[in-house]
């Protein structure tokens, strides 16, 4: 996996809440047994017209956002199925960062991304960046006013800088374990296998409750 440290790219808006994994990658593309080739099908039903031509209305197809690597959307991004194909599509399209807002406050705070999707992103070196609804609203405003604007995500410093006029800096929070994982681009199976002795010891005393069939 590619480590993630500092990344600069164009920000593309997709102004919808609850963007589900069926929208990110429709089911007909889940039949592929390889791990590549999903990027061209990202948001397939929104991105292409019935005749297969690009839908000019969809932001990803607008010239200003060509080559965008940072996507901003509304809350509950990636809800639905566990299909990692959705994250492969996001990553293989070239996106390295997805931004979505959390909702509510304190103990009632609802994360901006669905759990399984966020987890799958970590495994593929894609940063899910959460900000408040007000901050994400600001980003939408700026990106809509200045299409094609670039942003820099600095993971060590946990900042997102929008290089618009004026420049805006947002501080974001991230789980310490996830941050370390992304910074180092780790292979988690190899990491886990460092605990081989602990796993073997656990297996000796643990009852898996399986009847021999």
């Amino acid at each position: 996996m590619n480590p993630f440290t500092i990344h600069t790219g164009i920000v593309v808006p997709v102004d919808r809440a609850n963007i589900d994994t069926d929208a990110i990658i429709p089911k007909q593309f889940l039949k592929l047994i390889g791990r590549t080739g999903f990027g061209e099908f990202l948001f397939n039903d929104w991105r292409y017209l019935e005749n297969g031509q690009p839908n000019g209305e969809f932001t990803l197809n607008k010239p200003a956002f060509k080559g965008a690597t940072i996507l901003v959307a509304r809350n509950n991004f990636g809800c639905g199925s566990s299909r990692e194909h959705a994250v492969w599509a996001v990553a293989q399209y070239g996106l390295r960062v997805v931004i979505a807002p959390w909702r509510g406050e304190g103990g009632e705070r609802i994360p901006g991304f669905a759990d399984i999707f966020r987890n799958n992103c970590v495994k593929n070196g894609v940063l899910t960046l959460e900000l408040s609804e007000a901050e994400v609203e600001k980003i939408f405003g700026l990106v809509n006013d200045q299409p094609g604007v670039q942003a820099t995500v600095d993971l060590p410093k946990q900042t997102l800088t929008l290089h618009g006029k004026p420049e805006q800096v947002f501080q974001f929070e991230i789980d310490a374990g996830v941050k370390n994982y992304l910074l180092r681009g780790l292979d988690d199976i190899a990491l886990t296998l460092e605990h081989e002795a602990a796993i073997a010891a656990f297996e000796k005393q643990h009852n898996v409750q399986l009847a021999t069939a």
Partner: protein
Amino acid sequence: MLGPAPLGVKQLRHAFSTGFPSLGKNLRKPFQTLENRPYGWCCARGGAWCIFPPAMKETLYDKIWKRHVVAELGAGWTLLFIDRQLVHEVTSPQAFDGLRLAGRKVRHPELTFATLDHNVPTDDQTVIRDPVAKAQIEALRKNCREFGIRLFDIGTQDLGVVHIVGPELGITLPGTTVVCGDSHTATHGAFGALAHGIGTSEVEHVLATQTLRQKKFKTFRVEYAGRLQPHVTSKDMVLKLIGEIGTAGGTGCVLEFTGAAVRALSMEARMTICNMAIEAGARAGLIAPDETTFQYIATGDRPFAPRGAALDKAIADWKALATDPDATFERTLTLDCDRLVPQVTWGTSPGMVTDVTGVVPQPDAVRGYSRADVEAALAYMGLKPGMKITDIKLDTVFIGSCTNGRIEDFRQAAAVFKGRQVAAGVRALIVPGSARVKAQAEAEGLDKLFTAAGCEWRYAGCSMCLAMNPDQLRPGERCAATSNRNFEGRQGKGGRTHLVGPSMAAAAAVAGHFVDIRSWK
């Protein structure tokens, strides 16, 4: 940290067993927390200090978690042992490829169970016409052979949707950890198993290590109080919940479903609730095992469940899993089931749901969704605000899926179809969740009842729930479905899905539009 004990041994033992109330005013309030659990301390006569952990009040989730901790990884992450991995053809091929590339083996093939469900045709299972689907099915067969994994293949009596097969074969048991590359793995939580969906990278991780790197979720108790009215089902209970808290309301949480209405449900009905925990954003749903659970496991042909003395011993152990009476949850919610009525979704998110007696809402009157979200959903669904739910006409009815594809679901549907006919112009597809469910339904004559009513009776599979196989809606077609997602294009590009329970779907097939099933004798 135990200093010289100023208390008698008897007194100490009593203090430990009761969680320290006997120490009375000597016990002060918790002064620190360790892993979110309070530690008490007492100041004893003579100035000696004792620090004791009070008897911890744990939730069902805490108890299962604790039993599976292999190692602490730092920063709040834990290596958790996985007792069962279920595998299907869609989310596994890349995981097996990863193992091959790295030269790794499957650590516990005997704890890994594979089935074919997403891609399989349900009209004729002897021929798979779609070459891409066929390649994926063949890949799973080859991977199972190569890595020594048991496969419930097409044509065998154990084939079926992964979340139907696990419980019915006794693979899913209380207190176990269960994962699968499928978000509806939450289903197995109905047994008091910690079960959730994972991505393909994690499928590979579990195949290679039989563990998962996890951070503990928050706990969220949903209490269903009261008693369901006739014809109101657990599908309505879970749809109501999603309408209340939204499709992200449970994100980051494990839901535990409690209350009199849950206790009164059968195992099959409980599975429907846990199945859709993910539609409320929660990766896992849990229900504490009880006599209903033990009875389900003890009866029937469940080749992987313990029997005899082993079962008795297991049941004694499972009884200790229930959440302690005073355990605390980070969030709680109580829903009243006395007045719950059948639910119907009207939009493109499971949280866009209302009572069958209601109307399609105004765009600015839906909690948790913006005006733009609702307008987009109504445009896609071809519905106008103010329209009565019972005026919505259907083209197709789908009864099946891991949500409502078990024998009780088909019995409910059959009771509605008995002596009635599917309305002209409506296609009704009835798809059993497994080959065993199919055989059981046929033994009870349900298949003949369905076909006599004008329904299509199919082979087992995921079918039109996600329409990866040829069972799909055409653009603009409107479907009453007992499945779990009404997303845009879920059942076919341009298809419009309304989620309901099985008897509501059957009644809609007969009437050609939604009806309040409670009004039917």
